[in-house]
């Protein structure tokens, strides 16, 4: 039983990582209606920026705050300089642009920062009272941060004017312009915020998975699955989807099919769920006028 409980908690911990990145994916989707495949690499790159600041002597929280600002700027810049230019192009063209971004960021990170594994610091002390053998202080802290971020994102979209304007700009750009919403600005902001969320997710994940250029490659797969499982439009879906994916993957590996194909099995289960609930667990079916 102890093993089972442990696997469960581990699943929650990894689910927290997936959920964090999934939140960034949801944010970008809500703001732009695109699934940004480069989100993981953006998160990794901004985490490297944070590490560079820390190496230069900045205390953790200062580096954290500066990185958030930097991530926001980088995200908005990418939208304005690159994504905006393919705004009216077919969906797949935009996907290729994201793939291009992914490749550039991955390659640049390797070139600028090297490929050696780096130990990224955690702001949660290793001997804190809230840790245990099952759930380290960092894992506890990370889960709290993810849930707090989720609450902020949800509140932002639900209760603020800016959030509403963003959703409108993504849903119906033409009408939004008519009511005075600066659609271009909303899109840039959306990217900025998503990039910021990604940076948080990256800095929370790095102490566990270690920082290196390919850090996010595996995580993105799970985050993608988590975001879609939860329903790509729903911020709540992201962390819940993440927890489900994390727990299911661990249990499948430990008790069901063994570690050799647990990834395949987990993904297939998710796909099976989607076949029955095509908009995800918490998504809403969009009705299209004929």
């Amino acid at each position: 039983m102890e093993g089972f409980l442990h696997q469960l908690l581990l699943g929650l911990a990894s689910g927290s990582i997936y959920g964090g990145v999934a939140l960034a994916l949801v944010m970008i989707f809500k703001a732009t209606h695109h699934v940004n495949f480069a989100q993981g690499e953006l998160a990794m790159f901004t985490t490297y920026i944070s590490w560079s600041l820390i190496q230069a002597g900045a205390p953790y929280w200062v580096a954290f705050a500066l990185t958030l600002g930097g991530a926001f700027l980088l995200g908005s810049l990418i939208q304005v300089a690159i994504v905006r230019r393919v705004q009216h192009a077919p969906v797949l063209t935009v996907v290729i642009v994201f793939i291009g971004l992914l490749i550039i960021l991955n390659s640049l990170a390797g070139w600028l920062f090297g490929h050696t594994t780096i130990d990224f610091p955690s702001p949660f002390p290793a001997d804190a009272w809230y840790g245990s053998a099952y759930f380290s202080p960092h894992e506890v802290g990370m889960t709290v941060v993810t849930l707090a971020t989720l609450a902020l994102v949800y509140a932002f979209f639900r209760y603020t004017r800016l959030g509403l304007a963003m959703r409108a700009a993504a849903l119906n750009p033409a009408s939004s312009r008519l009511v005075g919403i600066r659609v271009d600005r909303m899109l840039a902001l959306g990217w900025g915020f998503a990039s910021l969320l990604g940076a948080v997710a990256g800095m929370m994940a790095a102490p566990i998975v270690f920082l290196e250029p390919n850090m996010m490659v595996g995580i993105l797969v799970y985050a993608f699955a988590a975001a879609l499982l939860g329903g790509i439009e729903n911020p709540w879906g992201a962390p819940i989807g993440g927890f489900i994916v994390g727990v299911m993957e661990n249990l499948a590996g430990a008790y069901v099919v063994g570690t050799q194909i647990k990834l395949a099995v987990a993904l297939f289960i998710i796909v099976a769920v989607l076949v029955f609930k095509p908009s995800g667990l918490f998504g809403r079916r969009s009705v299209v006028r004929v």
Partner: protein
Amino acid sequence: MKKSRAPAITVAVLLVGGCVAPFAISSFHTFQLTQILIYAIALLGLNLLTGYSGQISLGHGAFYGIGAYAAAILLDHAWLPYWATIPVAGAVCFAVGFGFGLPALRLEGPYLALATFALAIATPQILKHDALEKWTGGVQGILLDKPEPPGLLAGPLDADQWLYFLCLVFVVVSYVIGWNLVRGRTGRALIAIRDQPIAAAAMGIDTALYKSTTFGLSAMYTGVAGALGALLTGFVSPDSFTILVSINFLVGVVVGGMASILGNLFGALFIVIVPNIASDISESAPWAIYGALLILIMILMPRGFAGMVRAVAARRG
């Protein structure tokens, strides 16, 4: 209205050039050209799905791999001669693709992307699994002999050139079949389903059957390409078929231009040659250059190479 002769002339020129090429260029370049031909078949398969049918697939690397392994296993156990393994590989992939398409067609957009993505990730894991190791060779993979030209042709042709012409034949056959498919009823039905799914269903088109069949056909083409690819490389292993293969195919189809047969050829050329060019430009971060080129091309030619050609032709005509 007079139909433009340009496409027919282009095809003729390409065919003639294609037949002469292996005698004019080095063995290595023949090898590269063969790789381009093989990818052209794979891209045709993906194009059938994304271009004509409007569905997205991030998982065609899986079919490429399944086709390759099918051919490799058959050849390894000497159950079939090499040329027979290719259609069998195609048939296997058709079955898998059709089977996958049936449930998957309920999904759309990013959800379908995830499902195909899952397939691409799962396939190498399954290929490596201990239970299948006896057939697949597990992580060690399977080594294949390069096909030798048959008796009569063994004199004038070497192995590289023979394989090239074999692939050229398959390219021509695939494209002729594909062309007819797309021009005919099936093609029109697919375009109808892509553009106006509700209206199409209302008109009596069996959407489910068409979508699954398209998936199957698309997988079949890519599987044939995979089998040929296995013969070209002479080796299959799970590491050869990672998600990068699927992404590469998607890049090729979009850069070449969707729903265009000539565009496929350009796309295949792109994904084989441009990474090498990028390496020549920058030794330290070649992939950053490649990514930048990708983005630039997408900005300048949002509908791919074929799209640009169409736009230019439209302006002229």
